[in-house]
């Protein structure tokens, strides 16, 4: 059963914190803060609990959640690798946490240095010339990058360039971000090798194309072998090449988007740079560009001014502000720490291990779940579930009973596959799983497959050990109108 709502535990007039100040009499001057008719005339209805009850409620909730700290999390496209505890601690230092964004900028040089150092490192990692750390998440990084692209063509007077080409395997945020910037999306098919169909690409490439937006490796876990050819064609067409860096974990330290010909990139720190995902966020989505696009980055830009990193708000050509302040500093400190703890050698090793683990998984499961594509996969592998005796969506739920978070399937999570992959699973073990852990996960897959042959209903009704039974998605009724008696 799902845990109770905290509203069901509320006890009138109990409050966990004592908010008084002997020098001020409560209730005295309430009238002064707004027009009389705007004064509150009824209780809000906030839950009321003592501190211990709050602690117990949320401690209990946490025990009905599964994070990387709890076990393997091979959720394809999400890169659920270890989130170092040291980074959490350092991100919460008072010298970062208790800094007000409107402090005089010379009272927070450590923040600027940190941001500048991180920008520099990300530029080096991605092969770009300038980086903004402002975007709040991957999708926001896309939005920022596409605004830069738009501005570029505005400056060139090429206002006809309103089309963004996007492969059909792209993450949903790509077309959504493009639409938000006022672009039109044209979708490019995937060929039988799992790569972008070059004929389809050529068919769409015309003077209205602003750019092509791709991930490499793709969401199918494959490296786009033709990337240089594609980059050349795009550039010859006067268009720009955008890199969705959500899969950078597969190439960091080994291959740089900038070297492949990309003009604009974003990365997801909560994937590649080990920042925790918090059950949904916050993330951070740094955006990098080649030098010719630098003037358009959102304001402020952090850069050395008289040798000392500081924010530069005087950016006449900028796309403007994409959010308040300077980005998700608390998240960015963690990303910075991750890079520093690893150094170049560590990042490279991490990438190698990520790819090694995915290929190992793919290889060891090949008899059960044949790979969708024959070539080496990168940091994740797409496996066909067609020969299982049960539906893939049911199969993976049974893994929950054995302590393994399900991999990604169509409809569960954010990835988008073509129809022929209806029963396919995208598995991303990540580099922080040991052989023992991988073998454990593999064994659970096998266990479920064996069971599928003899007791499919055990699988179709799974999970059996979770806090709820299998959840019926299409009966969802969103209780949007709250019950005033709640």
């Amino acid at each position: 059963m799902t845990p109770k709502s905290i509203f069901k535990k509320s006890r009138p007039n109990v409050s966990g914190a004592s908010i008084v100040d002997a020098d001020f009499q409560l209730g005295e001057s309430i009238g002064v803060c707004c027009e009389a008719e705007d004064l509150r005339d009824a209780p809000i209805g906030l839950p009321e609990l003592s501190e211990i009850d709050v602690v117990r409620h949320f401690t209990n909730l946490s025990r009905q959640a599964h994070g990387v700290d709890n076990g393997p999390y091979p959720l394809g496209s999400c890169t659920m690798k270890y989130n170092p505890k040291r980074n959490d601690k350092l991100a919460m230092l008072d010298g970062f946490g208790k800094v007000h964004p409107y402090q005089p900028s010379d009272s927070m040089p450590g923040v600027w240095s940190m941001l500048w150092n991180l920008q520099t490192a990300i530029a080096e990692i991605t092969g770009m010339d300038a980086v903004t750390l402002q975007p709040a998440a991957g999708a926001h990084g896309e939005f920022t990058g596409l605004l830069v692209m738009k501005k570029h063509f505005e400056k060139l007077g090429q206002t006809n360039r309103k089309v963004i080409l996007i492969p059909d395997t792209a993450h949903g945020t790509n077309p959504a971000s493009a639409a938000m910037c006022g672009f039109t999306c044209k979708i490019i098919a995937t060929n039988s090798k799992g790569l972008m169909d070059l004929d389809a690409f050529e068919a769409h490439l015309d003077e209205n194309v602003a750019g092509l937006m791709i991930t490499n490796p793709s969401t199918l876990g494959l490296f786009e072998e033709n990337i240089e050819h594609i980059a050349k064609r795009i550039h010859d067409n006067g268009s720009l090449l955008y890199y969705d860096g959500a899969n950078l974990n597969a190439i960091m330290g080994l291959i740089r988007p900038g070297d492949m010909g990309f003009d604009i990139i974003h990365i997801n720190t909560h994937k590649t740079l080990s920042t925790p995902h918090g059950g949904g966020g916050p993330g951070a989505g740094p955006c990098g560009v080649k030098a010719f696009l630098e003037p358009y980055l959102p304001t402020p830009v952090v850069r050395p001014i008289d040798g000392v990193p500081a924010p530069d708000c005087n950016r006449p050509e900028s796309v403007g502000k994409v959010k308040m302040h300077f980005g998700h500093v608390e998240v960015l400190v963690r990303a910075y720490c991750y890079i520093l703890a690893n150094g170049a050698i560590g990042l490279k090793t991490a990438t190698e291990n990520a790819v090694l683990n995915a290929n190992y998984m793919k290889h060891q499961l090949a008899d059960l779940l044949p790979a969708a594509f024959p070539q080496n996969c990168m940091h994740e592998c797409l496996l066909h579930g067609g020969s299982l005796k049960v539906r893939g969506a049911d199969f993976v739920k049974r893994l929950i009973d054995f302590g393994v978070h399900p991999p990604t399937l169509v409809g569960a999570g954010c990835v988008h596959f073509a129809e022929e992959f209806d029963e396919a699973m995208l598995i991303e073990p990540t580099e922080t799983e040991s052989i023992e852990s991988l073998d454990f996960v593999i064994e659970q897959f096998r266990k479920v497959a064996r069971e599928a042959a003899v007791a499919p209903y055990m699988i179709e009704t799974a999970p059996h050990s979770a806090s709820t039974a299998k959840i019926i998605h299409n009966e969802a009724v969103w209780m949007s109108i709250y019950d005033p008696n709640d």
Partner: protein
Amino acid sequence: MSDAILTGYNVHTEEDRQKMLAAMGKSTIADLFTEVPEHLRVSGLLDLPPPLNEWELERHLRDLANQNATTLDTLSFLGAGAYEHFVPSVIDAIATRGEFLTAYTPYQPEMAQGILRFLHDFQLTISKFLGLPAVNCSVYDGATALAEAAWMTCRITGKRRIVVSASLWPDYRNVLETYLRGRGVNLITAPTDEATGQIDEAALATLIDEETASFLFQSPNRFGVVEPMTRIGQLVKEHDCLNVMASYPMIFGLMKNPGQAEVDIAVCEGQCLGLHLNAGGPYLGIIATKTEYEMHLPGRIVGQCTDLKGEEALALVKEEREQHVARHEATSHICSNQANLALRALIYLCLIGEQGFRNVADLCVQKAHYLEEKLTALGGVSRVHTGPFFNEFLLTLPKPATEILATLREQDIFGGVAVTDLDPAAPDNQLLIAVTETKTKADLDRMVECLAAAL
């Protein structure tokens, strides 16, 4: 020594790697990268600082952190949208628990009822709070929440003209413009009454026309002045356009909720609800609307459904609005949101509860008014506006604000925000001062004394 030991996060020893390669019939790691053209590979290593072990890393980060003044060592009256409220320790202790911090979005609801429950209770709490039933799991921050709301009104009405109060925080306005630029939306500015600092209602009435999707305003506004919410709501309704209000959650400890004031979409910056200042982020974008507009909401929504046994369960719902389903037709591109901060806000509200929340608001008002009275009693210092204020007010000073602030800083006081920092075109002798419950009477008196000396 192998890389594994060198970096700490790499779990394989060199022997492990060989063993795994051998299992696949490969001999080197390079065999896994045959699809990558040779010349695209980085030759050697990236140019990054050498790896730091844990104590070196800590030292470096502490060095950087120590370079920053903080609101702990400097008495701060900074506000302008980010406020130094107290953050109960329970929040840090709970929100950083590994199960919460290291989980992904709850795509597998059976494994994530704890997360779905707090998100659902967050939605419920916000809905009570803002008096609007449809709430999502959060957006990036208050400014992007306003921008998302603005676009919602365009989708809902099919119109592309929005009237915006002139007294938004300047950066909210900037973000709004950035977000709407590609959408072809026409932003019209509604002026402020110079005396009261509130919206010029007469002017507003003339600006809203048939083509107008919505009116957007902020309260307290960029001058700290609290708008006549109910009156504005009526006026906007009369003109048959949507009414969007951005606000500072604390005011609802004392004020009616936006739902009671004809607001169609309410947005807030949730930073004040148990989040640290974090040098500006991550913060928490809150957005709530009426049930009829729920399909236009951006982002995740958690809803109730049933499990196989017929028992209540929670899951992400209404995904047909979202980017992974609707793609370029989605209500928004947002995917990752601020879930862990929504948790913080929920814990905050549960801990302080109904009465505590009212008390925080009450103390903010009293302390701010106490300080305002003392300061405006000083020669040459006066408040710019006559409209009511909550915990922040704008003063005119006999000198440039930056000069006064520099003098106060020598006394370890951040005396407020010079409005020229928000908007270079603003008068240079205006100072915006915010007060929260954490300031003692002695703090306020010290501020008065030091500011008097700085005049």
